């Protein structure tokens, strides 16, 4: 699935069919999943912040597909819309058809650092290791998930739900997440340092800068740095 890889970034697209059932309280499983995901918004940070190498990801429930009822710009659309001389049956036949899904789908779309080879298994293993319980909470009502018991079965399950990207555009830098977070920390700190140390004489500036470099330790990715998902200064 090379279309999923661009540089060192990987585009993971998962559609997991949700069981057509209800809880004893008569809540549809799809709505329960929606509620639980909504609950994630209320936590101090997303559980996904614990999953190594996650740049950005999203979850939503695909209830159904849409029927295109708005005017289009295709030749046949325009012709059938504009010519009243076209027999009504022909005109109706040219209208878009109505489709409905038989199942609702949990959609998980994720961009992560997978390296040049696109290490999907490593990512999914890290995801299961970091938030296995939270994964069960969301995917527990999907078809086939009852076979997931550990990291290996989770990887197998996710691969069954995976769809290949036809085109993946990587507009960011695709370094490992810890490199990116360290770089953002350094950018913020250097901007602050530059503003606070304007106009100093060379010797004082040099002393301050040496102390600054010692404090920010540019090559030490572990600390000090920004944690994943940091949302306040």
């Amino acid at each position: 699935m090379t279309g999923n890889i661009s540089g060192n970034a990987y585009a993971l697209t998962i559609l997991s069919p949700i069981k057509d059932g209800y809880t004893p309280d008569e809540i549809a499983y799809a709505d329960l999943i929606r509620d639980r995901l909504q609950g994630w918004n209320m936590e101090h940070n997303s559980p996904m912040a614990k999953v190594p190498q996650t740049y950005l990801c999203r979850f939503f429930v695909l209830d159904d597909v849409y029927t295109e009822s708005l005017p289009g710009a295709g030749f046949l659309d325009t012709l059938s819309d504009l010519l009243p001389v076209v027999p009504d049956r022909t005109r109706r036949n040219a209208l878009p058809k109505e489709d409905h899904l038989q199942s609702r789908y949990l959609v998980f779309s994720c961009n992560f650092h997978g390296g040049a080879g696109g290490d999907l298994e490593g990512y999914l293993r890290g995801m299961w290791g970091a938030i296995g319980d939270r994964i069960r909470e969301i995917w527990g009502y999907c078809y086939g998930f009852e076979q997931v018991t550990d990291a290996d079965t989770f990887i197998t399950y996710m691969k069954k739900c995976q769809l290949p990207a036809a085109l993946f555009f990587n507009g960011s830098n695709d370094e490992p997440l810890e490199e990116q977070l360290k770089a953002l920390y350094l950018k913020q700190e250097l901007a602050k340092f530059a503003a606070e140390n304007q106009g100093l004489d060379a010797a004082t500036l040099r002393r301050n800068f040496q102390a600054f470099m010692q404090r920010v330790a540019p090559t030490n990715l572990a600390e000090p740095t920004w944690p994943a998902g940091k949302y306040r200064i």
Partner: protein
Amino acid sequence: MSNIAGKAYAMNVITPIRWTTAWLNKLIFWIALKRPSTLRGLITLSLIHYARWVIIGKNQFPHLDSSQPKEKLHYSYMLFFSNFNGSWDQYVDSFTFAIPGGLDLFWKWNIRYPKSVALTPFHHYIRYNQIETIHYYNAYPLATSNDVKSAKAVKDALIQFQCQSADDESDDNFLQRYNALLRGLQHDLGAMHPTPIVSMSAYQVERRKRWHDGSLQKEIAAQQAAQGGQNHDR
């Protein structure tokens, strides 16, 4: 529901495409992959972190279990996912103004695609086919895509600066190098701050702020005490 995580917006669009022409779209994407110059227009839109197009054949929706009903669809479907900075209007309009031809090429075979110009029908098309995100996570909500890219330049420059330092360097020489460092990074520096909140998760962000300053814990304790008092009265 939250399409926004910090400075990033998550867009999801699903549009039908005739199965007879879906392969043409796949071919266009394949050519775009093989000839990266076709994506030059997208690269100019530096507000994009990542974007992707996925085409699901009408019989390719994942089928995991024999008890799961099989899909019976007339069309194949194209999913578009984007992570970008700024507002919905800014993004959609910048696509229209910067790469209208490319946009039309990618959506050309989709049912009732109105083309990217004029704007209003295109806005209606995207809005009609957009699906709201329930949970959106961003590893760096304080940063834009340009911040992530420029931060790398800052980090690399700082490390290089450190490598070039010498103990016997004069202060004046240091000052010269320091000024050159800042001059070289003037397009990459700039402090990051949280954005004004414009999402439906604003309530939660406010709540987090109160949690950080300790007032939320007091509110919850007061609420619990009040509830306890009410229960006791009963």
